[in-house]
């Protein structure tokens, strides 16, 4: 039972923007190295949303995890507080079905498959590109085509023409937060630029929550202090208009307390997690001929996760789980624009992942190594009113272990296709897609001490989506509205669940799950320009019926999956007037259940949180500007939980001061 607690921890451990009018007002000054797509491309055959820097600034969010709450179909599992782990899941599939890209390259976690998006802050993020099924741009590594949801974090590489750009500032606020940051962009030559950024964050993590034992009183969440450090050093070289070389190096370190679930009548846990990760990735995009382009990339990453429990009742009075992951991958992707109608894309990735357990409590950990060859071949066809994309993905996996028996090689073929049709003359588009995904088990599911099961097979998910989208403009273009409605059906089999195994004390992972998830995601985004005020509003609503079909004899059969809310929604509104910008955000999550079976004692009530923010810019000299920003979150001090017994903070706030210096002559 106690190994299970640590394993559960490891499991944990992964408007449509502003409308077209505001997108023009949002034009970035200087040169952007990496183009940002329109907020919701109408011809996209899969859901595709981009949150630009302006939109991100209005979301009362400091990390990518918090911003992800506003992506349609996405649910963020937040374990509470500024240092609480946050993982992201699409349409109740689970965090393992989300691929995270950093500027187009995979951020991998072969150990747990769950990237903690709280480690990517928004200070250095230029945009978040969110797509379902296929990456937004088909010239991408093969692995970008493998999953259900793709979140691409595009860093802020704005470079003033051959000059210097410096941004520095500090955040402070609730939880004892101090977060200074700096970002330097240096035009080394007319074609080369250097980017350095860093931020350091300290917070005591304390907040009040309503006492579960004595409803009228409050307790303070302790043991949640966090200390984080991020740094990036990157070099960009523009070879020509259609080719570049980009070398990025990113480091992250954090040391945080993990108080865990609130245990009634007991003192808080003193568990701690130290994470250190570094990665270095190189991308070279080059035309091979007039019609053929190649994107060659390579990446090395290393991540240490050191988890410790100082109350563990063994002879050392401590348990440590220190895992070191390394990953090396190389990818060659090609795009061949045969004609203005046809295109073919192909990518092959070779990936090596290795996991070692290096603490003194490890006994016979198998130190697995996995070599994967992933290939994707696809075709695009576009005519005036129709776009079609079809892909075939192949996964070949070989795994070896230091102790124990090697698993057999795995080979799987996954097809997907999508279509977008404009049936008439009005701006209304219909889209449909299907995709089969094989989700390979993670290292934790296969090998974790006493719980892993090396006989696990991949999960199989069949995803189907049909939708409609369009846009309209009124009042001579001063009001623009775009909208979308998508209905989906997802059928997952061989789902990996933790269940008790015969004659074993600890639980084990088995392929016994089955789920059918049906739902709808709808959104409307309106952008208004009146006199000098720009107003952007986005509303998302989602409906979901996620049924557990695993065990007909269980109370959970044909009942809603744990934590799947039937209704959920978000509202975002930003108003800009000259130098002043204010925003309001609302998040609604309907009733859901802590466990399967929809039993009354497991019900978590619905909740709504409201956030507001205001920012004001001051121009200091020709090339310097200063921005003050104040954000107030959960302004009605709603006491709520996302995960049972992990209370979320009530009212909290953040203040920011940012100074920017640009030595160039662009506007702004």
């Amino acid at each position, binding site marked *: *039972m*106690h190994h*299970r*607690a640590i394993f*559960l921890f490891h499991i944990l451990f992964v408007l449509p923007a502003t409308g077209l009018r505001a997108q023009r007002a949002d034009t970035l000054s200087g040169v952007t190295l990496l183009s940002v797509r329109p907020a919701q491309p109408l011809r996209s055959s899969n859901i595709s949303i981009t949150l630009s820097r302006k939109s991100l600034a209005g979301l009362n969010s400091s990390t990518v995890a918090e911003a992800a709450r506003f992506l349609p179909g996405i649910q963020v599992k937040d374990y509470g507080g500024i240092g609480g782990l946050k993982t992201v899941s699409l349409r109740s599939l689970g965090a393992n079905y989300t691929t995270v890209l950093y500027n187009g390259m995979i951020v991998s976690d072969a150990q747990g498959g769950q990237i903690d998006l709280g480690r990517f802050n928004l200070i250095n993020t230029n945009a978040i590109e969110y797509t379902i099924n296929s990456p937004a741009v088909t010239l991408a590594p093969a692995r970008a085509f493998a999953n259900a949801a793709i979140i691409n974090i595009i860093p802020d590489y704005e470079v003033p023409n051959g000059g210097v750009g410096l941004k520095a500032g500090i955040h402070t606020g609730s939880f004892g937060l101090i977060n200074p940051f700096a970002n330097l962009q240096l035009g080394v030559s007319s074609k080369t630029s250097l980017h350095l950024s860093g931020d350091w964050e300290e917070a005591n993590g304390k907040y009040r929550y309503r006492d*579960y*034992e004595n*409803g009228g009183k409050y307790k303070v969440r302790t043991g949640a202090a966090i200390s984080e450090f991020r740094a990036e050093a990157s070099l960009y070289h523009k070879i020509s208009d259609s080719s570049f070389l980009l070398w990025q190096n990113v480091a992250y370190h954090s040391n945080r307390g993990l108080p*865990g*679930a*609130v*245990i*009634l*009548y*007991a*003192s808080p846990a003193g568990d701690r997690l130290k994470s250190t990760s570094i990665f270095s990735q190189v991308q070279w995009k080059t035309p091979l001929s007039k019609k053929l382009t190649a994107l060659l990339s390579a990446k090395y990453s290393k991540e240490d996760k050191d988890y410790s429990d100082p*109350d*563990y*009742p*063994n*002879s050392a009075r401590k*348990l440590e789980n220190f895992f070191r992951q390394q990953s090396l991958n190389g990818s060659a992707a090609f795009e061949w624009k045969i004609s203005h109608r046809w295109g073919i894309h192909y990518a092959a990735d070779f990936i090596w992942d290795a996991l070692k357990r290096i603490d003194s*409590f490890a*006994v016979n950990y198998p130190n697995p190594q996995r070599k994967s060859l992933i290939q994707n071949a696809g075709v695009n066809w576009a005519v005036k009113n129709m776009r079609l994309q079809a892909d075939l993905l192949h996964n070949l996996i070989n795994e070896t272990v230091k102790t124990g028996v090697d698993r057999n090689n795995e080979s799987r073929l996954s097809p997907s296709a999508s279509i977008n049709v404009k049936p008439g003359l009005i701006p209304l588009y219909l889209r449909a897609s299907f995709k089969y995904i094989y989700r390979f088990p993670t290292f934790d599911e296969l090998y974790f001490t*006493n719980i892993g099961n090396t006989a696990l097979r991949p999960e199989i998910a069949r995803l189907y989506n049909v939708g409609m989208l369009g846009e309209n403009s009124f009042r001579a273009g001063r009001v623009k509205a775009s909208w979308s409605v998508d209905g989906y059906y997802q059928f997952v089999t061989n789902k990996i669940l933790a*269940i*008790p195994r*015969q*004659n*074993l*004390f*600890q*639980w084990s992972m088995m392929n016994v799950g089955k789920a059918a998830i049906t739902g709808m995601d709808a959104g409307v985004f309106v952008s208004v320009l009146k006199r000098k005020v720009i107003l952007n509003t986005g509303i998302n609503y989602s409906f979901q019926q996620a049924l557990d079909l695993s*065990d007909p004899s*269980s*109370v*959970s059969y044909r009942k809603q999956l744990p934590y799947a809310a039937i209704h959920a929604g978000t509202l975002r509104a930003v108003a800009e007037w000259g130098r002043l910008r204010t925003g309001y955000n609302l998040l609604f999550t309907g009733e859901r259940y*802590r*466990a*399967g*079976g929809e*039993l*009354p*004692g497991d019900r978590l009530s619905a909740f709504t949180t409201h956030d507001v923010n205001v920012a004001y810019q001051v121009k200091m000299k020709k090339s310097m500007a200063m921005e003050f920003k104040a954000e107030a979150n959960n302004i009605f001090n709603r006491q709520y939980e996302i995960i*049972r*017994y992990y209370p979320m903070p009530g009212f909290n706030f953040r203040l920011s001061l940012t100074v920017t210096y640009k030595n160039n002559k662009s506007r702004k």
Partner: protein
Amino acid sequence: MNKHFYFLAILAIVLFSACKKSDAPYDPIKPAKGVYVLSEGNFNANNSKLAYRDAATGVVSGDFFTQQNPSQTAGLGDVANDMLIYGSKIYIVVNVSSNVTVLDAQTGTFISRIPIQSLGTGRQPRYAASANGKVYITAYDGTVSAIDTTSLSVSQVIPVGPNPEGILVYNNKLFVANSGGFNAVPDSTVSVVDLNSNTEVARLVVGVNPQQLAVNSTGDVYVTSFGNFTSIPPSVTVINGNNNTVKQQLGPNYQFDHVRIYNDIAYFYNSYATTGTRVKTYDTHTGSVVRSEFITDGTTVSVVYGVDFDADNGDVYICDAGNFSDPGKVTCFSSEGIKKFSFSVAPGINPKKTLFLR
């Protein structure tokens, strides 16, 4: 003179019957008014439950604790592992919440919550046994806490071996199974504590990762062990409780991790097994098998998570944890292994212990 004689005679009979608890004909036990069933709940879910089934009506109150104590809105706590009735009170050991919750046995009314902690950190208590006005509680931090039942507070802490689990009282001594289950190499010892001096007087070697103990009327203490889940299977060791020596290991036909004894018959079972023998019964005097499968009518029990006995009629109550996430149930069998009735303890998950209210 006559008055004194009658008084002494009654006193003699009472004392005589108190010394011979297992000798049923001399000590009439009242039929149970009802049964309490304690359910662990899930780890870190704070959802332990106490259920009560009325014997006359058969009505089950799944969350009896909250029903009788509506002001206790948070419930019992996290992972309630064991309980016993001593005197007029029920003592519930809540493992992860690290306390002993005391209720009035007749009404289920909350009396007190005794923290089992050391310097503000929970000791993580596991099992309980009672003697001499005290309730003794094993805890994972390697201790036995003695709770004084008049003051309802911990009066003494006795160090034993690592991660103790089961505990019993025999012959004014405590026998404690030191599992050592949190270490890479589990322990394999039983601590013997003399209750006159409250100190450990012997440590005996038994099977690997010992869990539960039970004693018969002549002092044979049976100890069951988990083994190490790979090369070493579960096992049963017998200790002579009178002179603190190991008598024998029962051999490969007795690979069980839990044991209960009633009327000198041992009931062996595996608490996480979903297939195979449910309960094996064994005569502790003759050393022979009574029934290799106690259940005779083919009734299925998914997971035998607890076995308790109604001393009034010899009925055997078996707790079924099912799939460990759905609510559990309890089945009452006659001593011949035939199902009499069964009931769900919903919303309780992982029912473990049954007590009889008289």
